[in-house]
């Protein structure tokens, strides 16, 4: 197989890799905030249950969660397995990443001194106003480096989708490697992932700069 064919074939997979990446971010970033708020709930049972769910999601391999989301419904209820594998893959990734993002958000929110809440109360801010206008802008700024970390990891984690036969870039690379008995596809995959992450790094850096509003 010529290098050109190889790159074209793997680029087809790259569009699917991008689909997992962007859809996962779109769903998991807000979902993480919901989970973080539930985790910090004053109602004991809510925070305990959320905490348990987070330990499960962070304590089991993503590969296992992909299998569970894709094939679990079939074995439990006889439901048909989604033909379009993107759906279960994005669901599994979003839930998993939401758990990680939730803990990052929580760390950020809890790092804001309690005095700020008290000051806001004195100034007549409501609870929602305090959170949205005073706390959240600081939190977002503080957690950006940790979020970037997760986003970069997500780029590489997309290769896990091969577990359920979703034909993303690395799956195709593996197929070419074994069909043509050559290691070149792995090199191509490495270059693709690196370029992808350089772009991610640049974009996240720009966002961090934009958020430099307290200096």
């Amino acid at each position, binding site marked *: *197989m*010529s290098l050109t*064919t*190889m790159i*074209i*074939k793997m680029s087809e997979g790259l569009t699917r890799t991008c689909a997992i990446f962007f859809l996962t971010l779109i769903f998991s970033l807000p979902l993480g905030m919901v989970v973080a708020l539930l985790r910090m709930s004053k109602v004991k049972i809510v925070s305990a249950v959320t905490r348990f769910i987070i330990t499960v999601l962070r304590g089991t391999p993503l590969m296992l969660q992909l*299998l569970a989301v894709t*094939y679990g419904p*079939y074995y439990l209820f006889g439901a*048909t*397995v989604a*033909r379009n594998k993107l759906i279960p893959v994005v669901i599994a990734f979003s839930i998993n990443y939401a758990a990680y993002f939730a803990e990052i958000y929580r760390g950020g929110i809890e790092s804001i001194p309690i005095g700020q809440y008290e000051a806001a109360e004195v100034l007549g801010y409501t609870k929602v106003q305090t959170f949205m206008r005073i706390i959240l802008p600081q939190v977002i700024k503080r957690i950006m480096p940790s979020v970037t970390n997760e986003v970069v990891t997500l780029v590489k984690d997309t290769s896990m989708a*091969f*577990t*359920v*036969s979703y*034909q993303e870039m690395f*799956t*195709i690379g*593996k*197929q*070419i*490697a*074994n*069909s*043509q*008995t050559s*290691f070149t596809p792995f090199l191509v995959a490495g270059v693709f992932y690196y370029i992808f992450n350089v772009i991610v790094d640049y974009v996240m850096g720009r966002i961090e700069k934009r958020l430099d509003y307290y200096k």
Partner: protein
Amino acid sequence: MKKTVLILLTLVMMVSLLTPAAFAADKTFIMGIDPEYPPFSYLGDDGEYTGFDVEVCKAVCDSLGWKMEIFGVNWDEKLVQLDSMECDCVWSGMTILDSMKEAGYVISAPYYDNTQVLVVKADSGFKSSKDLAGKIVAVQLGTSGESLLNGDLADMAATFGNVLTCDSFLKCFTELQGGAVDAVFVDMPVAASYVAKHDGIAIIDENLGAEQYGIAFRSGDAELCKTVDDAVQALVKDGTYAKIAEKEEYADIVNNLLFLNSEAK
């Protein structure tokens, strides 16, 4: 008179449209393959799936008027993916195991006699499995070679120093060429095609563990299995099967194809 004939013909056509046969003609048959298993099923030079099993399946679908789709399974999860209707069969150099039959899967007539061999470095001086006592042997995860080393050939495996499982045969061979392992235990056709392309490695002339390849269908699909079996036999009779097998890229496997060699006898 003409009018009556016309009406009758129209009726016949309408009825034939409604019969199951007409529905069957529109059937889409989803073939489950391991896209990493040359020469049975793999990504060809043009980036499309090809291989002996793929070509035979294409011919079968053509003869039955079915549309064919290919689904690349994750070999470790192939039976889960078959069960969950993602493909209609697993047809990809698959070893027939008793455990599959016991689990209720319908298996086609065996079509290939497989043997397992040991591949070593050409200059290593190893001549038989006995020479490998205390040495490190690599095997691919989830292959019949691996189950043989844990089952029928456990005695032989016990003489090895260590058995290393890799997740693809390419990694097994790279470990061998890189000097990390002393031998690779692998299916004969895979070994033959790899040795043909790479210098410095050789196959030990000793057949270990005979087994046969077949096609797996879901437990309820005995009828589908028979249809495919019959269609394959028809291809054997009209020579299409032999024509596919004669191709250069299948030279390593042609001698072990059961349908062709039983005909010769």
